């Protein structure tokens, strides 16, 4: 009764066709089937944010989405954002400010931070905290992450002028 289902979607701009079991979540599909292991799996119940990816340009929890639900959708992972150069300044700011240590939360943090920066050019530190409130980091104590996001927002405003 639980048979594989065929799905077709775009991942980082490339078309993907696959057969998946209904129980397979998007995070595992990306990691195990497509070997895009930048999407991390932490809590598997939507609390930690390590698996954050973009589906149709909106951030979502890949652990709370079935692969069969992204039929016809466009998925972007940290590999896509990283390769396109979209977040190279944000990545550099994270590096410069030691906004990561073990790096486990970093892909999800970058996804959530870029989502905020796309919506708000001048976020307050409180806005940044709120937008990242669904992403756990167990190493940094968050301050350096907030600093890096704030610095990137400032720099982008500067270069936009």
């Amino acid at each position: 009764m639980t048979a594989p289902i065929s799905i077709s979607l775009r991942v980082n701009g490339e078309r993907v066709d696959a057969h998946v079991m209904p129980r397979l979540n998007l995070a595992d599909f990306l990691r195990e089937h497509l070997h895009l292991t930048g999407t991390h799996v932490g809590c598997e119940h939507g609390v930690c944010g390590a698996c954050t990816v973009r589906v149709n340009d909106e951030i979502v929890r890949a652990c709370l989405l079935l692969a069969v639900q992204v039929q016809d959708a466009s998925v972007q992972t940290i590999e896509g954002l990283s390769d396109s150069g979209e977040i190279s300044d944000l990545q550099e700011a994270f590096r410069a400010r030691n906004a990561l240590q073990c790096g486990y939360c970093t892909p999800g943090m970058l996804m959530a931070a870029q989502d905020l920066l796309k919506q708000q050019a001048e976020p307050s530190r409180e806005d940044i905290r709120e937008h990242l409130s669904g992403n756990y980091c167990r190493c940094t104590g968050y301050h350096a992450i907030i600093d890096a996001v704030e610095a990137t927002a400032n720099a982008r405003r500067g270069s936009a002028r």
Partner: protein
Amino acid sequence: MKASAFAYARATGVDNALHLLASHGQGARLLAGGQSLMPAMNLRLISPDIVIDIGGLSELKGTAVQGQVMRIGALTRHADLLRSPEIATHAPLLAEAAAHVAHPAIRNRGTIGGSLAHADPAAELPACMLALDATIIARGSRGERRIAAADFFTGIFETALMADELLLAIELPIARKNSAHFFHEFARRHGDYAIAGLAVQAVVENGRFATLRVVYFALGDRPALAKAADKLVNVTVTPALVQQASATLAGELHPYEDQQASKAMRHHLARVLFQRSVAELLHRPELGGAPQ
């Protein structure tokens, strides 16, 4: 953990979803945004035989205003509540509450219908339904029925929905002249489930409450409309009256105790929320019950 195996069906319409529900009975679960169902399945708290995906049904999406009533489709997401100009105008309480529902990535998927059908006692939207005096519209094999929010929530994760019913939409009276609302919750981290929370919808005329609906969440097994608030309607509110009303609150609320808070702490927070809401709604800071 990972969800255990299940079959999957993508519903093609409401009738198709109802047909699937009826034919699979108790073993079936409806999947909308999945932000409560998927965690429960991943934790293996539930293991449905079949998941019926209604996420693509456009007939269940969006809002519409007709006369004095706004209809909100079950698949309207928290992110939509936050951004919709119609919600901001006609039900601003919902927009404010939605900002407290989990985190951006979850609000992009989670739906109002899903939140109501899930009926977590600490969730924001069920309390708003009571405050707004909403009606929940469900359809099942015996047709459509309308359920008052006050009758809908029956316990922890329990509602009046039958196993073969699907929540279609909610209807609520739009905000009238002099409407005012208040929303606040205490949580350890922004976006977490509340330790104690309050949603209030009122009409304030000439410095008095013409109507006042005060609804608590995370203070019992379901959202609770506080009758104590009736004492403040159509009278000149005094600090003594607020004290009196907040003292009688204790008798109506039946908070639970958990790792986050004791019963006494929840009673205390309930009083604090009540006093703050009255002070803010009437623009009278002296009613806020500042610590002596």
